[in-house]
């Protein structure tokens, strides 16, 4: 140990990147190998009794999940978001949100809405802070359990996006409450609708079921690949369009701004599924199986919400069209990562 140490060539970056020629990006430097519970050559996730309950949880629901890859550290978020990129982009986007909120508030638009549309907002929009908070919780779990910091960070930022969405809903709830004092917006009505309205019950069942799904790969598939692509289409795209049809341009505009968050989440979620399948082909059958299990649940959730959109607004939209649109949106997103339907049917047959 006392012999002279020869000075090797100076490093350009962390040794964790191996012998690479290309300098890693700032995104990679600050994201790579941040979670020590995923380190190589570990006996357990946590530096404590390997059979402690926390270690068993991570072993069962993360390390032994059917969603596998050889080297998760090779995954990259297509948008390469860091914390700094995120707060810059979201601060900018929130300024736009505030701009339209101010503009429409000055025009007194909330007071001028048609009664059927106010009821639609009270039934579908203001109660949606509950399921969106549920999405926030599930996304946090995905981040907590993910097998690499590259996924944890993407999921952590998506968790914050849901808080952003709840915040926007909350703001508008108060605004509508003030503008429409005879409606029951902003009372205990929202929770009651979420807990008991028939249109919401399949969605609530879906959210509660994913909350109780502990395998991280299944939770990720159920939420990010199945439930959200389906419900985003109903609650963001179609709801925005129907709002505009009913003279509520503000809702349409806001959903347009916030949908950028959904699109970013879709991009890394699809990239993650493709990555896992490419690295470990058995991941494909796991994803197929989970998509097959959760798709009917997501379709039922869309269908429930479609009944509200078909019945309540002055200018409604056909329920079957809403449901079919949502299903098509999900299938469009998943096209390319799923095996053909007949192959899935064969796999899941007893």
């Amino acid at each position: 140990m006392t012999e002279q140490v020869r000075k090797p060539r100076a490093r350009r970056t962390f040794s964790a990147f191996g012998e690479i020629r290309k300098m890693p990006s700032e995104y990679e430097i600050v994201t790579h190998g941040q979670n020590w519970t995923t380190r190589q050559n570990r006996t357990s996730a946590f530096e404590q009794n390997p059979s402690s309950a926390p270690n068993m949880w991570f072993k069962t629901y993360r390390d032994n999940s059917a969603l596998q890859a050889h080297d998760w550290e090779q995954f990259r978020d297509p948008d390469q978001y860091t914390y700094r990129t995120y707060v810059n982009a979201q601060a900018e986007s929130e300024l736009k949100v505030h701009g339209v909120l101010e503009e429409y508030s000055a025009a007194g638009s909330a007071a001028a809405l048609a009664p059927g549309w106010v009821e639609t907002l009270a039934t579908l929009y203001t109660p949606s802070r509950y399921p969106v908070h549920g999405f926030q919780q599930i996304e946090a779990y995905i981040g907590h359990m993910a097998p690499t910091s590259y996924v944890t960070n993407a999921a952590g930022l998506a968790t914050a996006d849901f808080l952003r969405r709840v915040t926007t809903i909350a703001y508008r709830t108060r605004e509508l409450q003030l503008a429409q004092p005879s409606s029951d917006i902003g009372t205990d009505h929202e929770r009651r609708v979420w807990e008991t309205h028939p249109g919401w019950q399949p969605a609530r069942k879906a959210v509660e079921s994913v909350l109780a799904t502990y395998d991280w790969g299944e939770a990720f598939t159920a939420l990010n690949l199945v439930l959200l692509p389906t419900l985003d289409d109903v609650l963001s795209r179609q709801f925005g369009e129907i709002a505009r049809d009913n003279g509520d341009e503000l809702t349409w505009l806001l959903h347009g701004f916030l949908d950028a968050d959904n699109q970013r989440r879709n991009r890394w979620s699809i990239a993650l599924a493709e990555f896992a399948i490419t690295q470990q082909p058995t991941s494909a059958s796991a994803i197929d199986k989970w998509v097959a299990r959760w798709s009917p649940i997501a379709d039922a959730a869309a269908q429930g919400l479609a009944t509200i959109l078909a019945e309540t607004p002055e200018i409604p939209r056909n329920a079957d069209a809403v449901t079919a649109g949502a299903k098509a949106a999900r299938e469009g997103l998943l096209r390319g990562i799923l095996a053909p339907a007949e192959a899935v049917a064969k796999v899941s047959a007893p």
Partner: protein
Amino acid sequence: MTLLKREEWQGFVRDVDWTPTYVDYEAIYPEWHCGTGKVPREAWQGWEESYKVSYPEYVATQREKESSTYAVKAALQRSNTFQDLDEGWKSATKMHFGGVALVEYAAVIGELKMARFGLNGSWRNMATFGQLDEMRHAQITTFFGHEFVGQDAQYDWTQKTFHTNDWVPIALRNLFDGMMVAPNVVDLAIELPFTFETGFTNLQFIALSADALESGDVNFANMISSIQTDEARHSQQGGPTMEILVEHDPVRAQWVIDKSFWGSARAFAALTGPAMDYYTPLEHRKQSYREFMEEWIIDQYIHTIEDYGLKKPWYWDEFITGLDTWHHGLHMGLWYWRPTVWWRPKAGVSKDERAWLASKYPNWENVYGDKWDVMIDQVNANNVAATLPETLPWLCSTCHLPCCNATPSRNGEWKVRTWQLDYDGKKYHFCTNACRQIFWKDRDNVNHETLIDRFLAGQIQPMDVGGILNYMGMTPDAMGDDPDYGAWTRDYIGRAVEGIAAATVQGATQ
């Protein structure tokens, strides 16, 4: 027309709990993740944060902070300040980058756990901001450390440390896994935001920020003071959780807080203690580690826990006594086993430095002086090899740090001893009595092989210093050594050599 004030609508953001019926409550909020224990479920409805923040406020404020911190960094990058920094100070920053960057990330994982399993909607929302804050801290610390990798390979350990089985990260993973990620969210909210963030991070961040400025490292001061401004926001998850737990289960609250305070105190004695009392250049030291602990931790902490109706921890006397010994023993250990650390620990025991140590710690010469004299005499006899380790220290089965705490005997002699426990057919050794007590109470979780256990079980091959360094992931370019032996030994050249050193010195001269 202006926007509605936050107070008008924030109630809706906070009110997001519902009663599940399709799935059992227990399946969504499993007890061992949520840890409600004796607290009735309804009690959590009263959870309320004192410092409220909204999403748009958050992103706007944080964007400003980020741009100013990175602007300072960019400006300083063009200067040569790094080259001019003292080696001791550089070591303090290497310890910080390697010891802290990924701990911030462990806090991301912990905050995400509270964002999922927290027992109240507004708690989960605060944790959502909390995980963003911790992501910022992990990224900024990693990025600032990365800047120096090309100039000094030891900065590679900014990212590498916690991926290795070096004894320092084993000890720190054991502590932080146990208080930041693995516990149920009630315990976690008390251990991480309450004890650790409102208590101890002050120590590392305020103390080091002051020392950084004194040492001319504006960039480092800029980074850590910006990080510190986030703590007030997410650390407040501890208070409301504490209030509810104390009301319904004060015994548990006391235990959780006592245990995490102790673990934090041990780790900070290893990391912050040597940085403050030995590595920071003498002329730049503001306060001793003990003085800083007294001012920033002890008074404030006792005051806080008494406000919640709790008592001083049971081990208080042992802790206070340890302020005069723990970090001195650990410093000596870090210096002696310097090939196992990713910085250059300076001994810091020149005559002037010893005079300072003796003025701050009246027993210092009595307990540590003669040990350092042996090292000094060996160095002055050109026998540095004799000051290098050939074996391993015994590690404590709770804190995984070396058992190196001197305590006085009845005859006035100070000795390093261990506290022992026979359990399940095995003899365990602990550095302190409280570590032994914590092990006993938490034995299902903390019963975990130390590096020494692994060594003795043959998991580390070959069973020599080279094998150990390899197991620790230590490479020659990052291996620690004293940056300047002469700095602390030249004061003593020519003096008479006594004790152990005399024999080897004599042997060497023959």
